[in-house]
């Protein structure tokens, strides 16, 4: 009997792969047989993540996605070195917290470029002829902030809402090429980012009052990503899947 999910010899790009959800996703996908292309800005952390992957044939690329104009040449380099891409998971993102009084156009542009613009540019480059294999599947990581809002996270929430809207558009546009796109929508997940947030709030997290399954783990999100990325989800495209411990139903 075939395993429910297998990525044997599939080439999967994971951005934001050096920490949290991105790192956990890379580890899980490697356990399921994939050859991972790790992409993030910090080389030391990338090397650490690489050491946590199972199997062989993984690669890493140190790159700052804020540098949108050079993404195309980076994707070409990846394909040349690692082969055509079967899957792309976008976990990169900056969690900007700014009250409106200090939310400058420069800050908005920075957040939108990294959280939204680089995602679209990566999709544009990966979906070019010769850069992907039949059945390409793409998963973006959104945030529950894009659905419920939050004080001082205007730019962040808007950037994630933009990601979800783009995925709904592109799932239609790219369906003729047999490319699927989906997003996962995590709520509070136990990551280093969450630890920082909790420390800032004096250890109090009111979101958990409504997240009735408690605090999520990065593996919970990685499992959902692996499912959407896999052929087991071949009839699912354009959706935003909450991974929220029940938040949106409370």
């Amino acid at each position, binding site marked *: 009997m075939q395993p429910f999910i297998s990525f044997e010899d599939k080439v999967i790009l994971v951005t934001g792969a050096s920490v949290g959800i991105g790192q956990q996703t890379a580890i899980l996908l490697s356990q399921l047989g994939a050859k991972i292309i790790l992409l993030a800005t910090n080389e030391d952390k990338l090397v650490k993540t690489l050491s946590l992957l199972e199997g062989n044939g993984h690669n890493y690329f140190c790159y700052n996605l804020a540098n949108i104009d050079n993404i195309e040449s980076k994707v070409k380099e990846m394909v040349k070195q690692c082969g055509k891409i079967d899957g792309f998971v976008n976990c990169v993102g900056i969690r900007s*917290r*700014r*009250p409106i*009084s*200090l939310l400058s156009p420069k800050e908005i542009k920075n957040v939108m470029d990294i959280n939204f613009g680089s995602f679209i540019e990566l999709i544009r480059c990966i979906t070019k002829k010769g850069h992907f294999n039949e059945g390409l599947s793409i998963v973006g990581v959104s945030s529950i902030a894009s659905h419920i809002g939050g*004080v001082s996270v205007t730019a962040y929430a808007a950037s994630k809402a933009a990601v979800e809207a783009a995925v709904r558009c592109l799932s239609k546009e790219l369906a003729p090429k047999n490319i699927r796109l989906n997003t996962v929508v995590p709520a509070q997940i136990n990551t280093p980012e969450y630890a920082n947030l909790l*420390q*800032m709030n*004096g250890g109090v997290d009111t979101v958990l009052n409504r997240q009735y399954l408690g605090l999520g783990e990065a593996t919970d999100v990685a499992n959902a990503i692996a499912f959407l990325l896999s052929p087991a989800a071949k009839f699912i495209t354009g959706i935003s899947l909450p991974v929220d411990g029940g938040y949106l139903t409370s």
Partner: protein
Amino acid sequence: MTNQEKIALIEETLEIDGGTLTENTLLSEVAEYDSMAKLTLIVLCDDEFNKKLTGEQIRSFVTVKDILDFMG
């Protein structure tokens, strides 16, 4: 930046009437100094003084002078 200039910047950013704050003003007696103001102060210190203010540090501030000292 002088302390007076820093105070003016804090007043402007937190939308406190100019001339309200002095170095010795107790933060607990400033009505506008709420959780949103604290978040604003964190961003202000990062933007203007390139200093990362933690939640723990901000909770230790008692007077306006504590903020000024942190700003350096």
